[in-house]
């Protein structure tokens, strides 16, 4: 369990996502994975580092407030 949760975490817009998988090796805690061909960001592992956001070729990743941070 993580004691401090980030204020923001990454989220994928599956309507934009092309399932190219580019963001997977960019994620330091390996919080992004492909499950049944869809991209999934694991809220509990995401550290909010944003490293996946700008490289997405179609801008499908963005940051949203983390409801678990309080």
């Amino acid at each position, binding site marked *: 369990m993580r004691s401090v949760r980030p204020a923001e975490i990454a989220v994928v817009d599956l309507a934009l996502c*092309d399932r*190219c*998988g*580019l*963001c*997977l*090796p*960019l*994620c*330091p805690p*390996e919080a992004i*994975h*492909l*499950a*049944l*061909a869809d991209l999934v960001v694991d809220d509990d592992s995401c550290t909010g580092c944003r*490293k996946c956001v*700008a*490289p*997405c*070729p*179609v*801008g499908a990743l963005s940051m949203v407030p983390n409801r678990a941070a309080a």
Partner: protein
Amino acid sequence: MPDIDVLVVGAGPAGSVAAAEARRAGPDLRVVLVERDRAVGAPVRCAEGVGDAGLREFADPTGAPWVARKITKVIFWAPDGTEVKVAERDVGWILDRTRFDAFLAAGAVAEGAEAWVGTEVTGMRRDGEWWMVDTRGARGPETLRARVVIGADGVETMVGRWAGLDTRVPARDMESCAQYVVQGIDFDPDAIYLQFGDQVAPGGYAWVFPKGVGVANVGLGIVALKADGRSARRYLDDWIAARYPHGAKTGYTVGGVIVHTTVRETCADGALIAGDAAHMVNPLSGGGIVNAMKAGRLAGRTAAEAIREKNTSAARLSAYHTAWMKLLGDDHLKYYRIKQALEDLDDSFFNGLARTVNAIPTPKRTLGRIFAHALVRHPQLIPVAARFFL
């Protein structure tokens, strides 16, 4: 429970060659090649260019149905638009990757491997000397038992992760790429075009790779850290709007190209990774098809030999890593250093370099002569050249 000797995950060039080679080296082995997508070779995530000599190690392109175009010229566009023609012959080929990948997968089946399309691996765990591999596909959920798993599952490799290999990459070494198939445009169909420049493709380059007369793969790769906030797709839309405003965009793809060096460890107990999954792309050119096939060949052979010797430990399989590093991996360390040195040079340098090269008569423009002239006229290149020998 169906037992498998070699399970190859991903039917791209690395996976299909690995499956074929595993059967060639172990004709009594059960080799299964699984592909997540419902068709081998689709969707295409590739500019489809390949060098002549490397391709011929695996297949004869002459008259092959999986070739789109033969390439005999390379044309560079400097950031200011200065055009530089490099005279060469038999430069390479533009493939039809959908057909080419199917051709390679058929080659694996011809050697006796099984190919299962529409089958996704959803997880795997170690059980003694075996990998228990969960799959999902046309046959429903199924758990397979495999002695060796070869992960040829691309930049997004999950096999590498499940096997405990570190396949992460720093953002500065990730090229974000976008590409359209553009029809009805004017260019030399015997040439590939490469454009450099911070406005067009920061940290990468833009390309026009002909697929026929008037139709080409038009794409670019950028390093997001050097970009101005636009996505790769936006950069490409802007470039095409400026260069080919009347072209018809009839196809679209995106993807990541890892321009780094080979991952430190490509082997675990009963597992190997090959191709894009193991960061085996040439970090200078971004080319990876032939590299993937060469790695697949080594991986398939090593897996078969290890099974015959009844030793599929990481230590035994690491013969694959050693062979790869000797074949190409060590060269990639040099190319990577050159890439880093080139990153320090700006657009005005490349504009000047283009003029220097254009002062050499076209028939005499060999790469060696270009390099010699460039070194004399542009002392900024000396540290770049020096890095090659470090």
